[in-house]
């Protein structure tokens, strides 16, 4: 069976994923009689990178564009502008046999384990699908590979599960099957879109640990998309915080959690509930509610909600990400 070799161990500054000024706009129509054609800036001029062997977190509230970013990277959709490089190959330009290779290199794990497995397929068919469509191995080899993957993700004994249907499995087991499907072609990079948010706590930790373990054993790099900063802190080396299509802050996980710089990150962190009744958290310092970035004004995206907003924030365009210290980026006029 021809599978891509297990990637070499991480090389410190080598980026497996590089995203450059990535944008994705969606047209939206408003009004019935007078149609106005507007653009929803789902992802707007985002740049970041994921280093080989690292787990990078993309954190934000629902509708901030984090899932769109993940789908762009997995080439489920094509960008409006900007470029994505995986292993120095431009994702939107990949074609033909390179695309086949790309599909094996980059995999995705989806949020809802109840929806991401075809209800009419057996576990065997689901996990072999990537091998099947890429024509890897014969039936025997595939069987062997599937059994190996299932035991790797903790579905044991594999033979007891091969010919079951997804609805016969629990949520945690399904998500493990989904992980096995993603890993069966030995990917080097995995986009994990909220893989644990639908799972119960006692199950969730197991899946999180599995992902961490797989990264150790197989040297896989992840982009971990989540709304939960506490989860991101536990799983990720570095975190990028997204707000209305813009990346507002980047840094190591501990830096972001311990000393958030951007006012939005600060509010987000102070809003996370803590399991200790003795701690009275301060009220998050943020105004108003979340809006949609439809034809946004040329000013800081966070202006309306920012407690520190000044004139410069409204007068100038959305601030660029600036490196404030080594590897630490913030997009704010005031800082």
């Amino acid at each position: 069976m021809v599978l891509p070799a297990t990637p070499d161990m991480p090389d410190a500054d080598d980026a497996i994923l590089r995203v450059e000024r990535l944008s994705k706009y969606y047209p939206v129509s408003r009004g019935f009689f007078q149609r106005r054609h507007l653009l929803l800036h789902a992802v707007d001029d985002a740049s970041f990178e994921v280093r080989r062997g690292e787990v990078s977190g993309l954190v934000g509230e629902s509708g901030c564009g984090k899932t769109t970013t993940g789908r762009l990277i997995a080439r489920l959709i094509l960008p409006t502008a900007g470029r994505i490089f995986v292993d120095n190959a431009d994702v939107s330009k990949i074609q033909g046999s390179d695309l086949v290779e790309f599909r094996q290199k980059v995999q995705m794990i989806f949020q809802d384990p109840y929806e991401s497995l075809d209800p009419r397929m057996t576990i065997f068919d689901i996990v072999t699908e990537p091998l099947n469509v890429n024509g890897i191995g014969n039936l025997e080899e595939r069987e062997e590979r599937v059994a190996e993957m299932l035991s790797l993700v903790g579905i044991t004994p594999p033979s007891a599960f091969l010919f079951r249907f997804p609805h016969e499995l629990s949520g945690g087991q399904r998500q493990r099957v989904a992980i096995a499907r993603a890993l069966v072609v030995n990917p080097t990079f995995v986009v994990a879109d909220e893989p644990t948010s639908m799972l119960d706590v006692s199950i969730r930790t197991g899946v999180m640990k599995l992902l961490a373990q797989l990264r150790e054993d197989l040297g896989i790099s992840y982009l971990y998309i989540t709304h939960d900063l506490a989860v991101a802190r536990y799983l990720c080396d570095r975190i990028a915080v997204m707000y209305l299509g813009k990346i507002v802050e980047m840094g190591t996980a501990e830096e972001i959690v311990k000393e958030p710089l951007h006012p939005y990150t600060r509010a987000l962190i102070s809003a996370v509930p803590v399991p200790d009744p003795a701690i009275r958290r301060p009220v998050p310092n943020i105004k108003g509610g979340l809006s949609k970035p439809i034809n946004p004004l040329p000013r800081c995206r966070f202006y309306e909600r920012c407690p520190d907003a000044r004139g410069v924030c409204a007068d100038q365009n959305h601030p660029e990400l600036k490196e404030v210290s080594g590897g630490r980026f913030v997009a704010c006029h005031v800082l």
Partner: protein
Amino acid sequence: MWKIRWKLTVRGLAQNWAVFRESRVGMLGVVIILLFGVFGALWPIMINTVWDPLVYHPVVGFDPMVLHPSPPTRAHLLGTDPIGRDILAQLMFSTGREFLLGVLSALITVVIGTVIGTVAAYYGGFTDTFFMRVADIMMLFPFIPLLVVVGSMVRLTFFPFAMILGVLGGFGGITIILKAQALSVKVRPYIDAARVAGGSSFHIIRAHIIPNVLPLSFLYMMFNVTSAILSEATLSFFGVLNIDMSWGMMIHTADVAGYLFDFGKYWWLWLPSGVAITLFCAAFYMVGRGLDEVVNPRLRKR
């Protein structure tokens, strides 16, 4: 491997059967269909053993011993028609052909509808618009008058008629329904997962969308049997079809001989075939209703 798959298929069918059995309407439909099956299967046996083909042949038979139309007698259990043919034999002979016609045309309808529906849903754009407009035209066009016109232009014999009925149905409303279902399948995350795995459009349609649309197709097939039989009966009644014998034809025969005006007196001329059409159509409809609960788990009572 194949053994395991076979077992899984059997188990799946058994589970669906268990759900289906809960539905009284559906089971009643199955029983009626089975009875019709037995009834239709009796014809070749009867004609080869008990009945004299010269007297009882449904199309060319003639009984010289009685006046026609004869009311039910011991010799002709359901009487004879105005040109001396045995009604029971006609009824039995037609049953098998109604089955063939209904199932064949419904099958054609559903195959076309499923393929077009999924393709239109998956690709969208021009393909989608084109087939949806075709479907709109099919639905707006009065179906029966259209067939009357077609029937007057060409000799509509049995198989061409089944084909035409099937094809016209396939491009009509069913594509819209199956497209809607395919659309709801298309946006499921497992379709994305298949694309990330590297699956081609053909693979996704074949391996994911069609299998998930198929139960609904099967359900609509039942309803299409009903509509095919009804169309046949109507067209036969108008005498447009060039088929030897059918339930609709039986009523047509009574009509052209002028016996339908004396409605109650010559009841055996129209009642048996009328009842057969009604029951047969109702049976497939009821099976469809029963299948509805298998296909749409939300309708199930817990």
